């Protein structure tokens, strides 16, 4: 038995219950048999395999101790209602993006806070799990069947087992949705159960196109664990512009997985701005399954004191003639820890692959830490693959240049960090999504540098970058 098969007792939920017992599979008579079976299968997998430890290669840098200290109870139906009264529309992100908005509180869609069906052309459906199950045509069954051969790790299985509700977006072939569809995931810590397993399923028919924005936020309360899964299936020639704005409070723990499967000549762009939570882990699994598919992945993670953000990114070139481009940038201050763990696989036969993977990181203090592991695994000929990684500090020459022009040191640092982040932020377009991204970045300290009363965090490298004067007589 391997070390990871059975987690140490300390990693178990404090209830002392075996992991499998702790996974509460919702019992719903109305659910179809295949879903009940899939939930049970996933729960059994968690029980058999336990949670990953740092001995697991993909979890080397992320410890789950803090996560598993949160009781692993599934939120009861209606749990979100208790706190909803305290949630006003002012807590929701502004400005409105103009299209449909689905608000998911603690894993449940809240129709009262949502505006579903706004600016949706005919045939496009945005609905809840229950609603999607009524018109079940095998799509959702596929969604649960993808890990029949085994899960990458327990959190993905947990989502399958314990998911309460789901946002299901269906784009029929040729459908074009102009305005962004927004899904806002709110974590509203309840008294006991504080694990949420939100799920978003996008099935885009051939030639369809849409923009999807996921926003994660939390309101004051206790610690909570968000364990989200977003699945994207793109048919031939379909296009999806996908944005993730992750900004929960510092007492939250955030895990999310984007699982995307791209059909022939389809195109996915996914852009992540990650700033929130004590722990943030943003997994991306993209399979380029059809010839000529294209994916662009951009990520900006802003990691402050006491935070840990991990970005495991897997791009799988399984078909010929596909292109992929990744650019992830990290800004780490205080004693924050950022991780980029990129894995690019080119399968046999995936000739004509054109792939680039780049990770650049800026360390703003001596305590800040970054681990970057860009990896290529190439099993085909006739491919063009490149990768690179950099970890550095603010350019002392650029800092002096700004100061010599009269910009005070603190402000000069802000200008330089913003310049570093700009390359990613500008990929959030020029409209409301960009505005929201910049506000989130600002709130995370890109502008407000002395959050947490931590002058040491940002100013520490002042000691190395440009000591004050130093020219005494």
């Amino acid at each position, binding site marked *: 038995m391997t070390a990871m098969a059975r987690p140490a007792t300390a990693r178990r939920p404090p209830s002392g219950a075996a992991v499998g017992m702790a996974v509460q599979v919702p019992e719903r008579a109305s659910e179809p048999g295949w879903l009940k079976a899939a939930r049970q299968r996933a729960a059994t997998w968690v029980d058999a395999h336990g949670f990953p430890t740092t001995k697991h290669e993909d979890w080397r840098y992320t410890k789950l101790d803090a996560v598993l200290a949160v009781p692993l109870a599934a939120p009861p139906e209606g749990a979100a209602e208790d706190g909803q009264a305290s949630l006003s529309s002012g807590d929701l992100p502004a400005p409105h993006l103009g299209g449909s908005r689905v608000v998911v509180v603690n894993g449940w869609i809240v129709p009262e806070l949502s505006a579903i069906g706004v600016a949706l052309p005919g045939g496009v459906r945005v609905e809840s799990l229950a609603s999607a199950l009524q018109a079940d045509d095998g799509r959702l069954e596929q969604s649960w069947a993808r890990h029949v051969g085994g899960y990458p790790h327990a959190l993905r299985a947990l989502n399958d087992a314990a998911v309460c509700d789901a946002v299901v977006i269906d784009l029929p072939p040729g459908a074009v949705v102009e305005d962004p569809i927004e899904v806002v995931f709110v974590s509203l810590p309840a008294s006991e159960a504080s694990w949420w397993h939100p799920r978003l399923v996008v099935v885009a028919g051939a030639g369809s196109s849409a923009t999807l924005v996921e926003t994660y936020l939390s309101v004051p309360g206790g610690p909570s664990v968000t364990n989200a899964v977003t699945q994207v299936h793109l048919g031939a020639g379909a296009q999806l512009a996908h944005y993730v704005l992750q900004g929960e409070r510092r007492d939250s723990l955030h895990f999310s997985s984007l699982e995307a499967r791209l059909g022939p000549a389809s195109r996915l762009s996914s852009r992540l701005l990650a700033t929130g939570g004590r722990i943030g882990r943003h997994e991306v699994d993209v399979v380029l399954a059809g010839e000529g598919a294209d994916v662009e992945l951009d990520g900006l993670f802003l990691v402050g004191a006491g935070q840990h953000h991990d970005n495991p990114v897997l791009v799988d070139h399984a078909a010929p003639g596909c292109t992929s481009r990744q650019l992830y940038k990290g800004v780490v201050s205080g004693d924050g820890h950022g991780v980029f763990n990129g894995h690019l696989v080119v399968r046999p036969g995936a000739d004509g692959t054109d792939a680039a993977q780049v990770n650049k990181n800026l360390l703003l203090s001596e305590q800040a830490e970054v681990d970057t592991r860009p990896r290529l695994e190439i099993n085909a000929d006739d491919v063009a693959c490149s990768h690179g990684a950099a970890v550095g500090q*603010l350019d002392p020459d*650029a800092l002096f240049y700004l100061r*010599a022009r009269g*910009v005070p040191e603190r402000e*000069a640092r802000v200008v*330089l960090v913003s*310049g*570093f982040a700009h390359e990613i932020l500008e990929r959030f377009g020029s409209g409301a999504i960009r505005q929201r991204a910049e506000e989130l970045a600002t709130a995370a300290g890109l502008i407000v540098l002395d959050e947490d009363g931590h002058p040491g965090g940002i100013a520490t490298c002042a000691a190395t970058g440009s000591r004050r004067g130093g020219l*005494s007589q």
Partner: protein
Amino acid sequence: MLLIDDLHVSIGDSEILSGVSLEVPDGEIHAVMGPNGSGKSTLAHVLAGRDPYEVTAGRVLYEGVDLLAMVPEERAAAGVFLGFQHPVEIPGVPTMYFLRTALNAQRRARGQEELGPVEFLALVDAKRRLVEMERALLDRAVNDGFSGGERKRNEILQMLILEPRLAVLDETDSGLDIDALRVVAAGVTTLRSPDRSALVITHHQRLLDHLVPDRVHVLAGGRIVRSGGPDLAAELEAHGYATLGGPAVESLTVSTGTVSTGTAR
């Protein structure tokens, strides 16, 4: 305006300036010439407050105030401008934003109102024509992908916008074609007034054909070995630095103090 008195500067264990003294009165343009390694760039950097030079002796008074006690941004706000020999690239920071941030930071420090976007744009448009720069260049990141000449024009543009009282130009003429040289000289001449001064550091006489200085100082081996009128530049051009009196000119490699930890862009 500027009084440099017996200035000694070291970097690590090596002394680069060994007792430089010179005075630039109000309204005058002085040139500092000298061979490579004579300490010209060090002098410019020390005046602007660059690390990691250590002043071991002497003083620098700017308008009667101890310049060396001020941090770089204070010097800039007080009216000291350094034109860089190697202007730095700042990826992701548009030039217009950079210029406005700098100007308004100085205005704030002086207790003046910040300039709004409209006024600022008008100011930049007026000044950029003087240095023959396209507006599109200013929307790009600072010096990012700029040619050598564009970078130097950008330096002069910044000088014209910030309107310093003392401009220190560190080999702003190096590597420039004749057009760019003319632009640099015109920029300095534009600012010429009874209450502004300039210290023009150069290796060649070329710039001084376009920009006639009031005084020329020759820096060699870390000291001013000769001072004179504008004719001195022509004499140096004809006979070289080797004929100068004073201490032997040592070959020194001047480090600009780049930190070796690397930078992320």
